[in-house]
């Protein structure tokens, strides 16, 4: 009887809590390193939404490997918005499950990527192996940490950045393949995700250089001390465009279309751009970027669309079964 009463009491408290809470709730399904960014952004957006409409909004976050997150959405996780590591993963939500329209990327400015990042080299303090650019990574005795491009979105950017560097320097795709093969010979551990690789490098002390997202590298400096690591900016790198989209079928069912759209639009406002910049993502707005001159080193950046013809093509050539990544390990 007592237990029953307690249960009933708990139920009553639970339901009143639900009733008094706002009716709007968003789920943002994102990838690993954006955790800190969206904690800050969600707070700002909730305040903005409250001021504008008087409604409260609770935003839940889900983080994990980008591909895994896309798969969860495809398999039925009811995400109102996705903010993933690469357009290829958002494409899959159209390709496999048709939850969004084919031209999702055209709906928001800048390829639906409100902030960008790039791949940099994180080395140990004092840079004992004198690593300055991509071609230092293939030298014998240099140990490189990167996740597996088959399982990690971040690693695909690494792979393509190294490939394009070699192609420009050595002149052909064949030579670029040899270069990447030599680079991966120097990789002792292939973790399945970017956070795993950071742990291997930072906490296990393995490797001389970590190929990392710029924001992840800054985060490592912030968390573990700038006296332990240094960021080396290569001469050329890839412009990583983490893309965002509303998941149309889900918001339609939940009736959250308006707030979900406002949420993503808010990423493009000065406030949203400033939060991105504070969290070491490169804002699209040059005026905001100029406020953080120390954070974003100037380097030559290329886009995947211009050089590799977009994600679909790059995935097919390099990362599908039998692609160049499989080839460099099989012969």
């Amino acid at each position, binding site marked *: 009887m007592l237990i029953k009463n307690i249960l009933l009491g708990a139920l009553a408290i639970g339901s009143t809590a639900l009733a008094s809470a706002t009716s709007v709730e968003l789920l943002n399904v994102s990838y690993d390193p954006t955790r800190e960014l969206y904690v800050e952004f969600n707070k700002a957006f909730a305040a903005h939404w409250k001021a504008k409409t008087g409604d409260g909004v609770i935003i839940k976050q889900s983080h994990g490997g980008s591909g895994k997150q896309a798969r969860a959405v495809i398999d039925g996780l009811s995400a109102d918005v996705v903010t993933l590591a690469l357009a290829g993963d958002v494409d899959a939500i159209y390709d496999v499950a048709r939850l969004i329209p084919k031209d999702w990327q055209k709906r928001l400015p800048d390829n639906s990527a409100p902030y960008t990042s790039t791949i940099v080299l994180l080395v140990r303090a004092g840079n004992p192996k004198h690593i300055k650019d991509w071609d230092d990574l293939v030298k014998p005795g240099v140990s490189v940490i990167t996740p597996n491009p088959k399982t990690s979105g971040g690693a695909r950017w690494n792979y393509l950045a190294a490939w394009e560097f070699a192609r420009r320097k050595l002149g052909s795709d064949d030579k670029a393949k040899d270069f990447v093969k030599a680079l991966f010979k120097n990789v002792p551990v292939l973790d399945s995700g970017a956070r795993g690789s950071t742990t291997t490098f930072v906490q296990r002390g393995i490797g001389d250089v970590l190929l990392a997202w710029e924001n992840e590298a800054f985060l490592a400096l912030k968390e573990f001390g700038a006296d332990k690591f240094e960021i080396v900016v290569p001469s050329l790198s890839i412009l990583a465009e983490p893309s965002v989209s509303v998941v149309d079928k889900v918001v339609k069912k939940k009736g959250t279309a308006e707030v979900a759209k406002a949420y993503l639009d808010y990423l493009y406002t000065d406030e949203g751009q400033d939060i991105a910049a504070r969290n070491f993502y490169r804002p699209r707005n040059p005026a905001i970027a100029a406020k953080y001159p120390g954070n974003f080193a100037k380097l030559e950046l290329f886009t995947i669309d211009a050089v590799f013809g977009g994600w679909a093509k790059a995935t097919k050539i390099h990362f599908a079964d*039998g692609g160049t990544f499989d080839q460099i390990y099989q012969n």
Partner: protein
Amino acid sequence: MTLSGKRRYVLPGFGLSLGFTLAYLGLIVLIPLAAAFIKTSGLSLADFWAAVTSPRVMASYKLSFGVSLFAALVNAVFGGILAWVLVRYTFPGRRIVDALVDLPFALPTAVAGIALAAIYSPNGWVGQWLDPIWAAGVAQLSGWIPWVDWPGWLGGKLAFDRPGVFLALTFVGLPFVVRTLQPVLQELEPELEEAAATLGANRWQTMTRVIFPELMPALITGFALAFARALGEYGSVVFIAGNMPMHSEITPLLIITKLEQYDYRGATAIAVVMLVASFVLLLLINLLQKWSRRYYRV
């Protein structure tokens, strides 16, 4: 086995309990497994074959089955000794050791993997001593027998290589052997050994003729459970294996890799191969157990 269909049971409810059993097995085991087969049936035979026999996948079968088998064998030996010590001797802290055995059951396997990697990595507590010894040992072997690819077989280092896979699989399999052996050992009275001794058996004979036959069926069961558990293990292994293609990738990782590429059919194709292979192996082990029971009991 020998019960005939016409036998009257003391307690009623055979139909009900069998129905319940079938429904339960169906919901929890058969339907999910059948789904794997159905999903695969979308592939043509040629595609299926290509998916399950690509070089990377073949290399992973060898690693997964080989290391799982080896880990289960090692567990059978050392888990057996552990169970013996726990049952036959009283010593301070025995209860704690006994409880420790269950830890691999309860611990999230990712935690186990991260912990093992931290300890056995080259700058870890144990790894900083053992890793150089292992590397030197493998180099020494290569010196003596140069025509075998020792680093390829054994791995050149402890963590983030094949030995890491072995460590993780041994860890998750240990409780199965200990927990299946313990009750049998508890039933086995020391008087049996004394009787054997009074009848003139020496220690070796007591061991091989009296104790071992009693333990054999349970030992095989424990071995089979540990083996099956190791085959399916994913969480702990990926943190310590290094995951190098063609070298230290386990099959479950390749299934995840396929999923990551949205290749659901390819993933289920490999899963089906693993399922069938595991089923056949477990069936063989069951037969072996039946045979051993008969062989030793005469």
